[in-house]
């Protein structure tokens, strides 16, 4: 009886759909986690798209140059960190409007990855195939019915996402550094008055955020296609930003939100197979975010000092 049910088409299709949901959610989740770090420190990160694109490109470049995909991942994270550092310099030190700087970061990401694409491989559309990162079947667990296929035959990026989600939660809610970071996003002047180096925290958080977003991008290139294509992130950065809001700036919340958006993505892929219009399914993440922010679903609370510049000499202390 159970055997029969497990082998039925309905279960098979559902598991396939959910498994592809998790795949779709992985890059979103990683980037959205990145957004949590940056925004909890009070820096609006509209540049996720550019950071992901950078991660996607350097992941492939690293793999191409070394022949080792994991070194590619490392290079991607490094590149994301450096891009985020530039972003942090511009927004924190030189006090650019966060949104504007984010727009610039996205332009920069698209511009230089394409220029480098041509410079390195002489092709305007895509890179050659390189060694990628392939799914890992966890011994024993992957043989479990349903769960095994769903969860334990995923890309290492997925496992990484889950681990980082848990660690991030612990970081934000159980360590002093997390407490301080949350406080900085709410009232940096107060934190500064206690002698905590506000800017150091802000820089590190933005850099960590950039590395995570780049990992999300690296998943798209190394984990899915084993190559880089021009503008391959195609709007996922904005969806990740939406997931960050829907998840209420909480590491677990944003990953769950990414799953929801991943599901929309997976459904869209299926519809495409049948030749049905996909546009309305594609809209789901955006519409959901609008409903949430419009106060129709539940209350979300952004960090109070989000997007504000902190300057000790200007605070009302």
């Amino acid at each position, binding site marked *: 009886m159970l055997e029969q049910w497990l082998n039925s088409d309905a279960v098979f299709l559902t598991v396939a759909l959910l498994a592809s949901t998790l795949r779709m959610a992985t890059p979103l989740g990683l980037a959205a986690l990145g957004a949590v770090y940056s925004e909890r420190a009070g820096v609006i990160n509209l540049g996720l798209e550019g950071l992901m694109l950078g991660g996607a490109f350097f992941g492939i470049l690293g793999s191409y140059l070394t022949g080792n995909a994991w070194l590619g991942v490392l290079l991607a994270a490094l590149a994301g960190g450096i891009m985020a550092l530039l972003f942090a310099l511009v927004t924190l030190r030189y006090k650019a409007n966060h949104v504007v700087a984010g727009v610039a970061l996205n332009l920069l990401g698209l511009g230089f990855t394409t220029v480098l694409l041509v410079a390195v491989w002489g092709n305007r559309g895509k890179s050659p195939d390189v060694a990628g990162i392939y799914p890992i079947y966890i011994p024993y667990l992957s043989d479990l019915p349903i769960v095994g296929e769903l969860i334990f035959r995923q890309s290492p990026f997925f496992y990484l996402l889950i681990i980082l989600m848990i660690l991030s939660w*612990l970081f934000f809610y*159980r*360590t*002093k550094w997390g*407490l*301080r970071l*949350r*406080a900085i996003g*709410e*009232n940096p*002047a*107060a*934190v*500064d*008055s*206690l*002698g*905590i*180096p506000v800017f150091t925290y802000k820089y590190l958080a933005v850099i960590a955020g950039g590395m995570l977003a780049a990992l999300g991008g690296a998943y798209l290139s190394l984990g899915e296609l084993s190559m880089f294509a021009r503008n391959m992130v195609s709007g996922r950065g904005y969806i990740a930003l939406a997931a960050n809001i829907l998840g209420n700036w909480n590491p677990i919340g944003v990953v769950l939100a990414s799953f929801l958006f991943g599901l929309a993505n997976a459904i869209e892929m299926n519809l495409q197979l049948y030749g049905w219009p996909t546009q309305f399914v594609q809209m789901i993440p955006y519409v959901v975010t609008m409903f949430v922010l419009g106060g129709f679903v539940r209350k979300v*609370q952004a960090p*109070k000092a989000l997007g504000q510049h902190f300057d*000790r*000499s200007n605070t*009302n*202390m």
Partner: protein
Amino acid sequence: MEALEALRMNKIVKSFGSLKALDQVDLTVAKGEIHCLLGENGAGKTTLMKILYGIHQQDEGEIYLNAKKVKISSPKEAITQGISMVFQHFMLIPNLSVMENIILGQEETKMGILADKESRNKVANLSEKLGLKVRLDMLVEDIPVGEKQRVEIIKALYRGAEIIILDEPTAVLTPQEVSELFKVLKTLKEDGKTIIIITHKLKETLAVADKVTVLRNGKNQGSITTDKATPEILAQMMVGRNVMLEVVKGKVEKGPVIFETKGLNLKDKLKNINLKIHAGEIVGIAGVEGNGQTELLETLIGLCSPTSGSIIFDQKDITKDSVEERLDQGLGFIPEDRNDRGLVNNFKLWQNAILGYQKRYEKKGLLDFAAITKASETIVKNYQVKVLGIDSKSSSLSGGNAQKLLVGRVFYHNPRVLIIAHPTRGVDVGAIEYLHKEILSMRSQGKAILLVSADLDEIRQLSDRIAVIYEGAITIEGDGGDFTEDELGLYMAGGLRPESKVVKA
């Protein structure tokens, strides 16, 4: 025996651009002393303390702690040296708990993870020892002001502070809370802590301090022990001349009632407010800040609508009218905070001079620049606004001149009813006298004036009638001469009920 010296600041100089905020200021504070730093707004008190706390760095001069020269270049270093500062605007994170706020920056951890129990014990010990009651698990946004201040003091002690600086600690407290605070400060003093209070209030200084240092215009005016000081002496040191404590107020025939509120309620913020203002009369609203004044002002001007009750202007019900309609009918409003609701700082003076009255300068949909120029220049001239020209940004104005511009704008446009809030806050003495004179001249022109101020002296000097607001209700109302200052203070604190004194209505 001379007490040990806890702190000595020697010939401190600090400039901001061309402005010399501190000029060779000395300050010596003995260990275990409560020391008041007295001065008017802009005298340099807060700047001096921010230097001590490492927020600003002095241009010249030295700081000695326990007779040892130190350099303090950040709050972190100040904390390490045992200095803490409680700011006028509390430095608390509203959506973190009291506990989290206290430990922030000095967290007890075990292997990187927050050790809640250890911190909790430490904080509980502190608060018990000094009788500072706080609820550790409440969110800061949910606790009252007095408790927030206790949290700030515990925060300082938790950091091992030996010198605690408090910036205008009583500004937002009721008299009861003030006396409670003073008790706490005296306990701290007995415990050997050194306390520096920044204030401009003479009576409080005399009530709590051992010694006073007075600053004026960034210069030290000398120090004096409180047993030798009187309010007169301190006032003289503060303003540098004999202060005219009484404003000369002529007699004005009261006209008919032209502005009235009937049973005004606003959620739980305002309770059954009934006010009547005659032409040629100033009604003063006295009260400790945060007792519904802001809500009352916003309701009267039309920024929020009352839950029930009505507002009558010249026998016409204006409760439902918009702000714009009220302004059109001749309601003039001087808001509490000129930078918040009054002026648009990076706009030009003329753009600010017509704000609220732009309708009157419209000709066929276009701005009438000739009329605007004429009006702006008249306001600048008539209200003594010191400015280069009407094209200057209003952010270039000093506090007093900005307030004159704001007052001039409203007075010039010929209102019939004036709602004036804190007209002299953050304004130098000269400008205060001038502004008071202008307000009185409005009274003699037969305007009906409602004056809201936290400054009891201002209320008493200007008002024909005084109403006390406490927790959103008018607890008593009477002629200005009906109350002594002490009585008013008690009403403001909610200590006296109306029935305890018979006042002729």
